[in-house]
Every structure is written in C-alpha cells, then in structure tokens.
C-alpha cells in the first residue's frame, strides 16, 4: 500500500494540524509507515496552505505527494491548483461553500463549512470535521485512531468539541 493524500486550503483553516493528526492516527495507532509535510507561506492566516500525508507499508523516501490518491480542498484556489495532481480514480473531497468543482471527477462535495458553523457558530473545528468525513469516505484511517490522535493535539478544554467535530464529519461523510 502506498497512498498519497493532500489536504489543502488557506492558512488558518488548521489543515496542517489535520495532517499531523491524520499522520499520527495511521502511523502511531495503526502501525503504518507515514510521512507528513506541509507547505505554507509567511502569512499566519489567509495564504495558501497545504499538507501532504503519505501512508505506506514500506519506507517512504520522497516526502511530498506527487500522484494524489486523496485530495481534500477547503478553498477554490487549492482545488484549482491541485485537482490535476489527482490520480485516475483518486478521491477528491471539497467543501461546497468554498469550492466550485470543475473537474470531470466530481468527487465528494460536502457542506463542511455550513454544517460546522451550524454546529459550532464558527468554522474553527472544520479541519477536524474534514478528517471525520475523509475517514468515512476513504477508509484510510479509523475514526478511533483519529480520536486518539486528536486527544494528543488539542487543548484539553476543547477536546470535547473536537471529538464532536469528528463525529459531525463522520456523519457528513456517511451522507447524513
């Protein structure tokens, strides 16, 4: 198995953290080889931001994703930039509020932003919601593993909300 995953959007959406959590979930809790990298600009917020996670049974050398098995986009710019890196048969997931899908491979348009706002008032947990949905849709990681990884990476006071976000994502992923 060798899977290349990219999560992309704008700075401030917490995608790098999402990548770290995903990597830890599959790497530490599911025993896979994993490598996570990121690419971001000088902006703390607002600029383009992306993270690549490669999951494999064997050693991973080149750490960046090249032929995407999974692409998740939370901004139009990132969708436009990376949709062509998607492999034939690859899975694309995107937020319907931020992204207008243009590719033939329509993939999964999900109401992540809207549902997150509905639930939490702000988009602050959208990254985690995305992870839940991605887990359900792609099966690349177990929700249980994500839960453990989330617990390692978010402040204790927000853990409950984050776990709820994961559930929300999983609901969305399951089409609910």
């Amino acid at each position, binding site marked *: 198995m060798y899977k290349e995953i990219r999560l992309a959007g704008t700075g*401030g959406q917490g995608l790098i953290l999402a990548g770290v959590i995903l990597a830890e979930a599959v790497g530490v809790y599911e025993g896979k080889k994993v490598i996570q990298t990121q690419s971001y*600009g*000088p*902006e*703390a*917020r*607002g*600029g383009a931001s992306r993270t690549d996670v490669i999951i494999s049974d064997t050693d991973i050398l080149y750490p960046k994703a090249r032929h995407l098995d999974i692409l998740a986009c939370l901004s139009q710019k990132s969708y436009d930039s990376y949709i062509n890196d998607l492999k034939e048969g690859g899975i694309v997931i995107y937020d319907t509020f931020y992204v207008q899908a243009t590719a033939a491979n329509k993939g999964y348009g999900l109401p992540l932003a809207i549902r997150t706002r509905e639930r939490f008032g702000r988009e602050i947990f959208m990254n985690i919601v995305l992870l839940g949905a991605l887990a359900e849709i792609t099966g690349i990681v177990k929700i249980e593993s994500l839960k453990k990884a989330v617990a390692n990476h978010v402040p204790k006071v927000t853990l409950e909300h984050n776990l709820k976000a994961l559930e929300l994502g999983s609901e969305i992923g399951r089409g609910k």
Partner: protein
Amino acid sequence: MKIPEIFEFIRVDERLPHILCPGCGIGSAMNAMVRAIIESGLKNDDVCVVSGIGCSSRIPGYIDADTFHTLHGRAIPSATGVKLAHPELEVIVIAGDGDLLAIGGNHFIHAARRNLDMTVILINNFNYGMTGGQASPTTPQGKYAKTAPYGWTERNFDACAIAQASGAVFVARSTTYHVTHLRTLIKQAIKKKGFALVEVISQCPTLYGRLNRMGDAVKMLEYFRDNTISISQIKDPKEAEGKIVIGVLHDVEAPEYYETYKEIIRRAQAQKHHV
C-alpha cells in the same frame, strides 16, 4: 464609489487584501498612519516608509511610496542611510516590538541619541507575530507565549521610557482602539523635527490573544478601551497602575542630527580642500 483618498497612498491593485490576519491591529495602525501622512500634507513622493521583518513590517509593501523592507531589526539604520541621502524625504519607520526592541534595540537607542529626524511607529502586539507567537521584550510577566509555556517571567520594556532616556524628542502612545487619537499622534510625530516615537498598542488575536485567552480582536479592543488612561488625566501616579497610559509622554526640543551635521560641513569647508 468615489475613490477613497487613502487609496492614493495604497498599492491597492494585486497587493490587497493584505496578508495580515482578520482583525489584526496592524491594519488599523496602517490605516491611521496613512491618514496622518495625508493630513500632514505629504504627497506620495515625499515619503519613504521603512521597516524590518515581522507582520508589522509588511506594511510598507502596501504603501504607494518609496518603501524599504529591510532586514529583521535593521529598519532604523537603513532608514538612517535614506534620510541622510535625502534629507527632504519624510522617513517613517514602522516596526514590531520584536523588530524594534529585541534584535533592533541598539539601533533604536542610538537613533534616539543622535536625534536624526524620523518618525518611528512601534506596533506593540506583545509578541512575535510573524514567527508564531513567541515572547518579546514587551510580553508582560505572567503571560503565555510559544517560548513561554509556563508563563513569561522576564520583565518587559517600557519602550517609551527607554526612548526618552536615550534622547528621543517626541514620545507618545496610543492603541488601535483609539484610532483618531493615534492618527493625531502620528501627525505630531511627523511634524516633529528629530527622533519621534509613537507606540501603538495593538492586538494579535491569532497568537498572543489566543495563547492568553483574550478572545478575538473585538474583545482585545474592548480591553484597550477599558484599560487606558490618558497622561493628561493622571493626577496621582497610582491611577495609572495596571493601565495603558496614552498621549504625548515626552516632547522637548533638541538639535536635530542633520542640522548639526551641516555645521560640520560648514566648518570643514571653511578650511581648504585636500581632494
């Protein structure tokens, strides 16, 4: 709409929206600065805006004038070269607390000492924004930062006090809540001949605000609104305790550097040339 006057001084196309976070006070400070420049009667080509490196230091890139984004901490010496080469330019330095007071602290005190005519706008957001929220020389004791996970125990600088002790002729402070006041102070600083400092207390909601659970930009501005005292209102120093003191803190006259340098030229030319 009719084109807002401020846009005459802004590199609107391609460059905006700027890279700063939503609600970042640096934008409000820029807003006030540009209006102060305009109200001072300066035209685009009369001004050079100089900065170091940091979120605050990104401002020059948005100003439609000669702009100079130098190295981290080095805005003041770089501006010194510009000003001495073009004494007719109004040289405005805009700098973060890390840029001006940490790595750039020495240039800051020496420029104050020399009293070369420039206006320095210090955007004090109590942390290093650009690098992700580390402690800075203005981080108050007890606050959290990425390099102060157990709370910051170092004492913090009062930039205004140091500027004054070092020789600055004009020293003032305001906040990003008090934008009209701030604009007036910047105007005064521009007008002042010599080294003038305006400290702007500003919010970094993304890092400092978040790490210290201070709420969003609005909450931070409310804090500035409710915890400020004007220097002119202080009767007993006790009243100022725990408050941000705003207003003109120091304003004196002293010979400006380039003016005195002209005297050197005069003396030198009175003698005969070697070259």
